[in-house]
């Protein structure tokens, strides 16, 4: 089959590889009908995530048709259309039974690597380094799905792939980020980063009762998309206000907009490659370039300074290692709660599918580019270097 393989920093190629096979009773093989490049794939592309090896198949947002099932899978049949969560969960350990799916104890065959780095191993992920399982990803014609009786969500009706694909990651990720804010009626939320996850976080915050959302970025087209409010209805939503951090000082703007109180919660939808033009951001770049730190946390510092006292910082953006100048003083002094972690996708797929069915949201609004799988190297390059125009890329095998 054809697959998108990582071969090193900024080196992604289409290669012919052996077809996946059933290895365990609870496996299934999915013929991929639509897959996407995630913002977190760019962290791999840029070489920020350790334990990648040349030849690894990328991709953790995918959906398709079941073509083969293991003897232990009772709830699926050949021909079923499914969306697959990006994290792999056994469904039976302490964490899965407690609905903490992204912390599954049993799905990472390379758990010792993550344990060495983090003390414990989170769940295995599709196509996201050997430390997180070494599983082949879904940017391919076929993919093996372990614990297929637990993760995949069946799509019964005639819904288009483009409307449901993002249930695999970014829609639940944005939604969980908003949920982690503990939003109460009338809250003000500030979202850093208007990439795909940020866009879903903005809309989810409104769904959960926020009265006002500030969207922060410096790419005009992303800010425009954020302002368009409820997808499908392309009019400006006056509950959403945008801040271009190239033109405006974020802290000052938010303080004057909230009468000095600050947003009730801040969402960092940027993660470890956060950039900015301030002194601390420059310092981060130097530190990372000289290997004295791995993660840049400019956004996190700004959020800690901005959020109201006793407020919440929710982090859906990916972090991987260690950061410098962590704002523990502001966090302690203001009594800030930080909520973060990989998304427990399994909890959100069904309820969010219902929202899509009720047309409360059309997730395909995020797609800006459609490519054939063979064009993946160009797609990665475009997504990486033209973040203004290129918001979300889907690949069709």
């Amino acid at each position: 089959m054809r697959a998108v393989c990582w071969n090193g920093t900024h080196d992604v190629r289409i290669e012919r590889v052996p077809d996946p096979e059933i290895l365990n009773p609870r496996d299934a093989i999915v013929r991929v009908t639509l897959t996407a490049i995630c913002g977190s794939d760019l962290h791999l592309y840029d070489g920020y995530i350790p334990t990648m090896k040349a030849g690894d198949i990328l991709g953790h947002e995918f959906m398709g048709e079941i073509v083969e099932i293991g003897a232990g899978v009772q709830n699926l049949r050949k021909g079923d259309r499914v969306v697959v969560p990006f994290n792999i969960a056994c469904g039976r350990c302490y964490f899965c039974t407690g609905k903490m799916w992204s912390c599954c104890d049993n799905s990472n065959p390379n758990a010792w690597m993550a344990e060495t780095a983090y003390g414990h191993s989170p769940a295995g992920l599709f196509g996201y380094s050997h430390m997180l399982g070494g599983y082949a990803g879904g940017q391919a014609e076929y993919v093996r799905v372990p614990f297929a009786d637990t993760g995949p969500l069946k799509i019964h009706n005639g819904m288009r792939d483009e409307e449901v694909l993002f249930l695999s990651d970014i829609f639940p990720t944005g939604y969980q980020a908003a949920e982690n804010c503990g939003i109460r009626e009338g809250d003000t939320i500030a979202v850093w980063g208007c990439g795909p996850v940020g866009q879903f976080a903005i809309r989810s915050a409104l769904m959960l009762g926020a009265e006002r959302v500030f969207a922060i970025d410096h790419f005009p087209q992303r800010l425009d998309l954020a302002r368009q409010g409820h997808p499908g209805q392309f009019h400006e939503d006056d509950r959403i206000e945008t801040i271009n951090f190239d033109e405006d000082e974020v802290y000052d703007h938010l303080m004057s907009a909230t009468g000095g109180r600050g947003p009730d919660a801040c969402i960092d939808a940027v993660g470890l490659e956060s950039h900015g033009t301030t002194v601390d951001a420059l310092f981060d770049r130097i530190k990372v370039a000289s290997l004295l730190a791995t993660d840049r946390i400019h956004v996190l510092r700004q959020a800690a300074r901005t959020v109201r006292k006793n407020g919440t910082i929710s982090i859906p953006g990916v972090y991987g290692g260690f950061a410098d100048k962590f704002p523990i003083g502001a966090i302690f002094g203001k009594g800030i709660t930080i909520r973060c972690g990989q998304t427990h996708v399994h909890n959100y797929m069904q309820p969010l599918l219902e929202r899509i069915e009720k047309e409360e949201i059309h997730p395909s609004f995020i797609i800006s580019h459609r490519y054939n799988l063979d064009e993946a190297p160009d797609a990665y390059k475009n997504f990486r270097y033209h973040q203004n125009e290129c918001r979300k890329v889907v690949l069709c095998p």
Partner: protein
Amino acid sequence: MKSTNIGALEQILSLGIGSGLIVHGLGQKTRRGILPLLFGSGLLIHGLTSHSRLYEAIGIDELHGSHIRHPLNRTVHFRGSITINRSQEDLYSFWRDFKNLPRFMQNIVAVQELDERHSRWQARGPFNKNFYWEAEILEERQNELIKWRTIEIHSNLEHEGVLSLRRAVGNRGTILSLDCRWTPPGGIFGAAMAKLLPDDPARQLSEDLRRFRQLMEAGEISRNQRASVDLDHSGLARKAREVGNKPGIVESVGTEQPL
């Protein structure tokens, strides 16, 4: 930890030879004196501090090492525990049926039960060397504990261990603890080698415990299949397929490859 871990004889020899080398080194007028000077200083420090970092790193302790039969024989000690979301009864009955152990223990090839208390074991060691031993159960409490040791005359590996099971606080499954020691062949060098090998037996045992949990909770051992071009010719992908086609056989493929 800075405690004494070398014996008196080694200490005296280190001090003696070290001083000798330093005197010899200082006597040389040319650069040839540097090497004995450095080596002698090292030995002197080794003797004075009576502590070796190298020994500590590879787990040699000449004073506190227990179970010493021969001055050069050293034991390897593994102690690990894991919480499993199953009852003590389930875990005990699966483990006590020793034939099940090769399903999740990577190095155990086969187990044969001879009678209630005796069993014969066969294992793969480093460099494809095979080990065999006969184990005798010394103590057994149903659903709680199994204690065993090898019978020397029928074994080429000395080994003893205790498996214990107890209820986790708050009824959150069962805590399994495994404590075992064995004496690798090759004495002190064997023990050092065992620690330095990529498939360090102690680490493999902790992996085995994790695989046991996967088997007991998820019903299977998680495996990845790295379908990529370079591996297709190395045999690893082939191995994945062979293993994958045999139902009931569980063996990790991707995990064995060190980074």
